């Protein structure tokens, strides 16, 4: 079971990535993260072992 995302989670993550999340934004960012995690659950449940990501590298020197 995933740990609940709280205002403290946001503050800790913000410190790690090196941004200051103003106190007035913290609860909204936590709510956004919770909504996102809920939407992302179905994606995480996929078996993607044999699937390449949609990221294309074109090595030609034409640009």
């Amino acid at each position: 079971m995933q740990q609940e995302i709280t205002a403290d989670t946001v503050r800790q993550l913000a410190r790690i990535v090196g941004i200051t999340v103003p106190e007035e934004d913290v609860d909204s960012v936590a709510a956004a993260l919770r909504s996102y995690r809920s939407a992302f659950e179905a994606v995480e449940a996929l078996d993607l072992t044999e699937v390449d990501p949609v990221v294309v590298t074109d090595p030609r020197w034409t640009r």
Partner: protein
Amino acid sequence: MSQELVDKTIREAGDLLARREVSSRELTEATLARIAQTEPTVHAYVTVMTESALAAADRADKELATRGHWRGPLHGIPVAVKDICYTTDAPTEGGSRVLKGFVPDHDATVVSRLREGGAVIVGKAHTHEFAYGQNIPPTRNAWNPEYSPGGSSAGSGAAVAARSAFGAIGTDGGGSIRFPAALEGIVGLKPTCGRVSRYGVIPMSATLDHVGPLTRTAEDAALMMNVIAGYDPLDVQSIDEPVPDYTEGLDSSLQGLRLGVERDYFFYKDVGPEYRRTVEAAMRELEKLGVTLVDVKIPELDLCAGIFLNIIATDTSAYHRRWLREKPNDYAPGTRIMLEFGELLFGTDYLIAQRAREVLRSAVKDAFQRHRLDALVAPSNIVTAVPMSRYSSSLFAGSPEDSTGALHQLSIANVIGVPSINVPCGFSSEGLPIGFVLYGRPFDESLMLRIGHVYGAGTPWVGRAPKIKAVAVS
């Protein structure tokens, strides 16, 4: 005369120009007069480019008069451009204080192509901040100024509906051309990924952003595509595929076409009864035109929200990384919160989303092949425009008043890169527009436009004009 002129479609105005029955200056002056009349109500424009527009109109007239040189279907036609497209003769602020007063040193490719095609750019249209959409721009719905115009190409949609531009350029990272088109009762086309250059357009996501036209008719969208589509080596996503004449075969019968209907996903419980009824009626009209509707199941569509949110948030936050640290208070609070949110997502999630994207793409492709589909059809939104007092552009709130319904219906085309078009198909009891959306095969814009054109020709919805309380201008 002025009102009669601005009511013309691009095709009609172009025909008048070609026959020298009207000049580009007359069209442009009529459009500027319409802007002056409607802007106090509609607020479609952040910048009106009066002087440069009149100069461009005079050049277009001179070319036609002295050399008989016709640059194409937009020669002399007044159009608007969303204010995230670079223009050298007007500021490009992206609806944000972050770029206050910024004037680029080059045009976006789409702007260059409009200018090379002889179009007259009359102004820069309002956008949600950086097209990310968390603030509320001043734009109002042309059908009722108490209601929302959608977004993020809010000004582009309102200008076309209000007849203060013959056509407009919008951008679409998750529905931002088709959403305002649906709420404003106009046609909005998001082309295939790579079809129209995004060079010089302030980005959200390198793989979700698209540039396309908003117009009153599908034929006008085809005419604009004939000018703006094509390979651009300056855009890393641009694809060097032959560009057809999008007007060719527009009148061809729809007999034998097969349109897929994914009811579990697109007709889900949040689609309002009036919206659902109206789109179902439009689907019956399509059947009368010879289309076969095919029920399909694509359960992988449910993956879209998670994939989309991850990619759009990560990509957009990456682009804004420096500004978020240097001037966070120049962003609207809602936009800043979204950028902060995107900073906190994990790199592994991003790659998982990009892998799941392939799963979604394959599932849609398989459904098209298995059922021999030409397109999918669905409601463009779940409800009509909501009152401004209740409007929210949140991507998370999950209520009819925010953007989550439109994202649910529209963002799939961005995630898998296929073309998608909004076609007006009716009005609510409150007189607000309703539309259906088509999803096509990659690079099959021509078919999307043909269905929109043939359907529109048989109905009273396409091209209907709102009655805006015009302000007298001395």
